[in-house]
Structures are given as C-alpha cells and as structure tokens.
C-alpha cells in the first residue's frame, strides 16, 4: 500500500538524521578517523553525564496505557527468568545506537528490547513477530473512536519446557543482590581508602560513567557483592561476583572549572574491577 512517493519521503526523513561529525565525511577511511572520534563512537550512548546542554523546562507526563503495559511486560519476563534487567538496559539503552537512543520515546526502547531479546534467544522468529504486527494493526482499521486496543492471545502456551535462567528461582525469598552475599571473597578496599577509577577502553557495555574515569575518590561504603553489569548484561550466570563500592568524589576533582564550593561531592557505585589503589 506504500507508494513510491511515500517511500521516497521516508528515506528523505532518515537521511536528515545527523549522526556523524560535520568535519568528516560519512564512512570515513581509516586514516581520517582520530582516536578521540573512535572513542566517541564507541562510547555507550546511555552515558550522558556531563554532556553540554542548556536548561529545558522540567515537565511531568501522564503515562500512556502502553507505557505501563511495556514496563509490566519487561518485568514479568524477568520475573519468569527470560532475562535479567541488565540485559534489557544494554539492549534498550546502548545497543540501539545514538540516534534511536535520543530519537524515540523512553518506553519505546524498553519495547524494542523485548522484541530483540525474544528473537535473539529464539523464543520467537522474525516472521512470527512481523505477521503479528500486521495482524494487530489490521484489527484496528481507521480511528479508534474511544476504543482501547487489547491483547488477544489465541491460546495460553505450555511454559514447562521454556528455557529460563536460574536466577529467577535462586533469588526467591532472598533478593538480588542478597543472593550473591558471600560469593566474592575478601574485599580489596575498605572504608576510607583512596582509589582511582581505571581508565579502561570500555566497548559494548559498562555502567562506569566516563565522567569518573581516571578520577580519584574515597571509598564511602562497601555496598554488596554481585556479578558486574558488564557480565550480567550478557546473560552470564557463571560470572564471578565482585565487591561493589560507593565511591565519593569531590566535584572539583571531577570537573574542570567546577564553579560550586570546594566541598561539593558526587557519589556513585562501582564494581571492584574498575578501581585501583592509590599508594599514598
């Protein structure tokens, strides 16, 4: 039903998305790309802390029905051992790439991650999803006129043979991260230790923000033991636990030209692999 004119219009829209540095051509040759540009492209797009921006008005928003249903969908999939939330965070916040990350509504990325995980883990195939999308759309031709779209599963499937993670059973009655208590061995750092965040060339996924990399801080708390998100995000149930720490930084150490008072601070939580001791 799509016309040649509509196709052309949509392609023109996509081509207006700007995702490259204006001073370098698209598809640069290797000699044209600097190390800094490479790092900028490889940076996980969810890590926005400290990026330049101007004040916007702060707005609340009424929740769409599909947004609530999307949140529930994601959480029930975790409850039933199809994924852990860290897989969702990578797929919906990082794997999408920068233009989708910044270009579409918040919960639509949650939704996108559900489709991706179901196909990637082979619970459904591409045609099943595509056919169902077309079918649902066909149920509601034209205006809804006050009707609310509803899910109409054709039957309830037998879930007994569905592949699920161990976590959704093991953590019951205990909680996460409590389920990992006692599995990381001795903590390398103690309260008050001075540490430096390692400046690692992180690709694909991390939750250690760029704005603390290489910065010095103090251990403010031994938080808990858990596998790091860099492993949990890939559904690695065999990943080794490590200690997590709340680290306190002075804002004037984090930011060049911090304009607030000297004693302003920022705290964030980091897994042990990202920290090194500072020998005083």
């Amino acid at each position, binding site marked *: 039903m799509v016309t040649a004119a509509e196709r052309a219009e949509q392609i023109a829209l996509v081509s207006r998305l700007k995702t490259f540095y204006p001073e370098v051509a698209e598809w640069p040759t290797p000699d044209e790309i600097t190390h800094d540009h490479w790092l900028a492209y490889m940076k996980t797009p969810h890590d926005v802390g400290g990026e330049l921006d101007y004040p916007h008005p702060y707005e609340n928003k009424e929740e769409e029905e599909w947004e609530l249903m999307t949140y529930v969908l994601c959480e029930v999939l975790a409850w039933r051992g199809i994924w852990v939330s860290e897989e969702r965070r990578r797929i919906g916040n990082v794997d999408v790439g920068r233009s989708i990350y910044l270009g579409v509504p918040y919960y639509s990325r949650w939704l996108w991650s559900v489709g991706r995980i179901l196909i990637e883990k082979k619970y459904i195939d591409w045609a099943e*999803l595509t056919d169902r*999308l077309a079918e649902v759309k066909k149920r509601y031709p034209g205006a809804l006129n006050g009707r609310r779209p509803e899910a109409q599963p054709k039957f309830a499937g037998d879930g007994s043979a*569905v592949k699920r993670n161990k976590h959704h059973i093991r953590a019951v009655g205990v909680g*996460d991260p409590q389920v990992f208590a006692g599995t990381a061995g001795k903590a390398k750092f103690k309260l008050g230790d001075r540490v430096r965040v390692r400046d690692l060339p992180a690709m694909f996924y991390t939750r250690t923000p760029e704005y603390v990399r290489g910065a010095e801080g103090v251990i403010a708390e031994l938080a*808990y033991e858990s596998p790091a998100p860099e492993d949990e995000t890939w559904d690695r149930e065999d990943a080794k636990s490590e200690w997590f720490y709340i680290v306190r930084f002075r804002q004037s150490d984090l930011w060049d030209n911090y304009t607030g008072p000297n004693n302003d601070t920022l705290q964030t939580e980091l897994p042990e692999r990202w920290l090194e001791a500072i020998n005083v």
Partner: protein
Amino acid sequence: MSNSDHDHDHDHDHPHKPMVDEITDFEVLEIALRELCIEKGLFTADEHRVFTEYAEQIGPTPAARLVAKAWLDPEFKKLAQTDAIAASKAVGVDWLDPTGFGAPSDFVAFKILEDTPTLHHVIVCALCSCYPRPILGNSPEWYRTPNYRRRIVRWPRQVLSEFGLQLSEGVEVRVEDSNQKHRFMVMPMRPSGTEGWTEDQLAEIITRDCLIGVALPKPGVTNNVTPLVRPAIRGVTA
C-alpha cells in the same frame, strides 16, 4: 476538522497525515509481543495481571510516610538510616514484592540519604532512570530526560536553582548517581513551623520532589515544583 472537510480542500493525491486517534506503533508492538509471550508460555496472563496490579498501586505515599515517621521517632529514624529495607516494611512496602525477589529492575538494595544543616543530597541515574520505584512510584518524566541527567552531575547548583532551590555555600551538595543496584531516596530535614504536627500533616508536605532532592519541604507546600503535565494520547485508566 473532519476527514471529509479535509478532502474537500485537497483534490490532489497528497498522502494524508495519520489521524491522532489511530492505534499507535507502540500499542501495536506492545500487544503483539505480549500475545506472543503468552502463546509461547513465557508467562501467563495471570502473572501479567498480578504484576500490573502491583505496578498500578506504587506511588510516593509510603515514602513520605516513612520520612514523617522518622521525623517523629528517633528510634525509627535510626532504623531508616541503617536498614532502609526493614524501615520500608513499617510503611507497607516489602522490597521482595511482587516476585519474591523484588521488582526485577529495582533490586533489593535501598538507602536513605539524610540531609543535615551542612549536607544536601539529590539523586539521579545518569545512565538510565534508576529510581526507588517500590516506595516512590514511577519517576517523573523530567527525571529520565537526558537533559536532567547530563546536567545535574556537573552543574548541580544551577539545576537545583532552576527548581527554585538555592543552597548557600556552607551546604555541601552531594549528588548520588544511582547507576548500579542500590536505589536511593533523600530524607530532608524537618522544617521549622511544623512543631506539634501529626504524622499525617507532616507527610503532606514531603513531596516526591523533596524525596528526589530538588525541593525542600515547607509548611503550606504540598505540590511538586513543576505544574507542567503533558497529556497522554490514551492514558492509564484509573
């Protein structure tokens, strides 16, 4: 103007803009995925309903109640500081609900950050939108925006001032970037002018924004800072 009026003005075959009232791409995708999950046995319609009921009842009321209790009872305040998960139970929040291991995206690690005359906390998740959902409900839209997340970690005093909160140089501003499994909430100081108040009266002025740390409780103020609300196309039915 109705569709036929529109046609009247344009007799060339320019494609029509979709009507606002059509099913959206997001609704189609959510319904398709949910149906397939149930048909494949990944979860049951019952489990989906149980979690929906959980998600519909979370909100900031228990969090405000917890802080009000702590203001009135020094013993409870100690519990709130040392074991916030246990303190949550006193206001009806069990962090293991509704799955037996918590709301999966929120974990079971909760800390309450106590403000003092020389220390003010504000929370953010610079990486996504981590927020103590089980006790504070869903985060406001602005909290999730790249704008708030980009700026609060670097220019906290400027951002707080945009919320109308000016803090003096003698007060340390501490940004808590909750980017892993801990969830955080701020316990502001009890304001003067509330002497003799009941728990109910106190809870009313402990707004969601106070618990995020972008506002301070004040007698007579029971609303969040920004009145701007963007309406939904087809919002959650109460």
